[in-house]
C-alpha cells in the first residue's frame, strides 16, 4: 500500500504546489500528456500522487481515500461539517492567499458595514418585495457568518463563477466571494464591507484523520513529513 497525496490537478495552484514540494526535495510531476490525471513522485518511495480538482480534495480527505491533500482552507470549511474532526492542518503553504469577503457596489456610499447591509436589506425587501440577493458559492460559510452577526432579509443565490458580474446582470445585489488583491472587485466597481471578512484562506497541506494506515504507510508518512520539514 502507498501513501496517497492529493494535489490540485491544474492551474497555478498545481504549479505552486509542485514548486513547494520540489523546494523540499520531493519532485511531483504529471505523467504523460497534460490531459492525463496521473502523476509521478520522485525523492521518496511509497508515495502516490493523486491529481484532483481542488474542490474534491476536502471530501477525499474526509472519506480517508487520500492521506494528505493540498487545498484551500476555505474549501475545507465550506464542504466539511466539523472539519477539525476529519482533517488536520499540517502546514500552511504560503501561497494561494485569498479572503472570503462580502462586497457591494462601490456606489452604495451608504453601506460600509454589516450594520448598513442589514438596514439596506430591510429597506430593499420592503421596496422590491424580495430579499436582497447575495451571490456566492460558499453558502454554508456565508450563511453561518451572517447568522452569527444577526443580518436578516437577505437570500443567497448560487454563483459558481464570474460572481462579480451578477450585480451588473441584476441577478444579485451583493456578492460573497474569494479575492486575493481586490483588483477584480475594483474593476467591477465593487467595494468590501469593513467588517465583512468571513475567512482568510490559503493553500494548506491537510492530513486525513480517518485514512487507514498500516505500519509501512505510517513510516512513509513520517518520512515524507520529515523531509518536508513539517513533522
Amino acid at each position, binding site marked *: 500500500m502507498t501513501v496517497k497525496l492529493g494535489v490540485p490537478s491544474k492551474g497555478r495552484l498545481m504549479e505552486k504546489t509542485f514548486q513547494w514540494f520540489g523546494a523540499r526535495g520531493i519532485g511531483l510531476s504529471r505523467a504523460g500528456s497534460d490531459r492525463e490525471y496521473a502523476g509521478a513522485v520522485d525523492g521518496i518511495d511509497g508515495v502516490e500522487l493523486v491529481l484532483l480538482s481542488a474542490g474534491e480534495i476536502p471530501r477525499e480527505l474526509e472519506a480517508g481515500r487520500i492521506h494528505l491533500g493540498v487545498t484551500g482552507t476555505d474549501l475545507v470549511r465550506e464542504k466539511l461539517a466539523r472539519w477539525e474532526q476529519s482533517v488536520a492542518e499540517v502546514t500552511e503553504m504560503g501561497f494561494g492567499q485569498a479572503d472570503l469577503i462580502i462586497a457591494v457596489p462601490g456606489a452604495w456610499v451608504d453601506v460600509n458595514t454589516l450594520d448598513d447591509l442589514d438596514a439596506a436589506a430591510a429597506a430593499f425587501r420592503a421596496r422590491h418585495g424580495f430579499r436582497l440577493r447575495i451571490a456566492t458559492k460558499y453558502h454554508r460559510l456565508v*450563511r453561518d457568518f451572517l447568522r452569527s452577526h444577526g443580518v436578516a432579509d437577505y*437570500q443567497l443565490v448560487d454563483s459558481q463563477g464570474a460572481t462579480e458580474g451578477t450585480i451588473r446582470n441584476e441577478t444579485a445585489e451583493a456578492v460573497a466571494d474569494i479575492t486575493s488583491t481586490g483588483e477584480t472587485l475594483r474593476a467591477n466597481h465593487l467595494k468590501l464591507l469593513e467588517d465583512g471578512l468571513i475567512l482568510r484562506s490559503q493553500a494548506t497541506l491537510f492530513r486525513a484523520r480517518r485514512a487507514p494506515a498500516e505500519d509501512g504507510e505510517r513510516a512513509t508518512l513520517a518520512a515524507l513529513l520529515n523531509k518536508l520539514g513539517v513533522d
Partner: protein
Amino acid sequence: MPTIAATRAKAAHLRAQFEAAGAVPVETPVLQPAAALLDLYGEDIRGRAYVTSDALRGEQMLRPDFTVPVVQMHMEHGATPARYTYAGAVFRRQEDDPDRPNEYWQAGYEVFDGQDPAAADAEVFCLMRDALQGLNLRAATGDIGLLMAAVAGLRTTAPRKAALARHIWRPRRFRALLDRFSGRTPMPASRRALLAADDPMHGAPPLLGLRSRAEIEARIAALREDAAAAPISAEEVALIDAILEVRETAPNALEHLRDIAVDLPAIERAVERLRTRMGALAARGVDVDALDFEASYGRASMEYYDGFVFGFYAEGRPDLPPVASGGRYDALTRVLGRGAEIPAVGGVIRPGLMLELEGAR
C-alpha cells in the same frame, strides 16, 4: 434509541390525549412549498431544513415543523375557535452536531382562540405538562411580549423602534443597535464621513444593479435624521437590560417587572398579561410559586413566538433539546394570513425523547 414503531405508537398516544382534550386531528403534506417558509424565516431556514426541487413546482422543503402548514390550513378554511392536533416526522438539516437527529417525531396541539388568551396559554402548557408527567422535567417559561412592549414604548424615533423590533429574535444585532442608538458605541468613521459630505455620491463609482440611486439617497436621509435624533437615554437602556435580566420564580419575576413598569409604563399591559396567565396556570393546578420565569427565554429560537413561551427540559441532560416546547405566535398568523390575524398558541412534544428518557430511568 427507540425504534420508529415505538416512537410512532407514542406519538399516536399523545395525539389521542390531545384529541380527548378537544382537538381535531389533522395531517399535512411532508413536502411544503418553500416560498412561505423562506418568506417567514429567511435564509436561515436553508441551514435548518432540507430543500429539494422539481421543474414543475419549484423549491419544496421537507417540513421542518407542523405549525406553518397547520396555520395556513386554518387560515384558508378553518373557523375560529379551533383546536388541532397532529403527529408525524419533521426533518431538520444538521451540519454541526452528528448526535442531533435529522428526522424525528413531533406530536402537537395548536389553539386558535382569541376569547381568553391567558386561559389558552395555560391550556397548552398544562396539556404538555400532563402528557410528560413522571419524567421529572424542568419547565422554563418566558414572554417575548415584554421586550416587544418595552421597545414599542421607548422615547425615541419610529425607525429606531422598528429596527429594534425587527431584531428582537437576534440578540446580538439587537444589542449592537441598542448600543448604537444610545451612543454607547461611537458612529463608525465611514458613516461620519458620509454624513459630513456635502455630496456623498461625489466621486463614487458608477452605479450598477437593482438598488437605485433613490434608495441610496433615501437611506442617507434616514441616517441624517437618525444622527440628528437624541440618543436613547441611559435610563431607558438600563430598563431594557433590567427586563432582559429578569430570571427568577414567576411571582418574584412579576414583582420585579412591576417595579420596572413604574419607570417604563409601556410594559404595564404585558406585565398584566403575565399576571393573568399566572392565575390561569394556578387555576389548572400549576405550582406557580415554583415556576421558573426568564424574560429573555426563547429569543434565539425560531422567530415567530411573540408572547408566552415555554419548554420542558430533562434535568441533568443539557445535551438534549427540550422534550416539549411551544408558545404564542399571533404575529405568525398575521404574516401568513395577509392581514387577517388570529390569536394562536401551541406546543409540540418529541415522543422519541420521551421514550429515551423513560428507557433511561
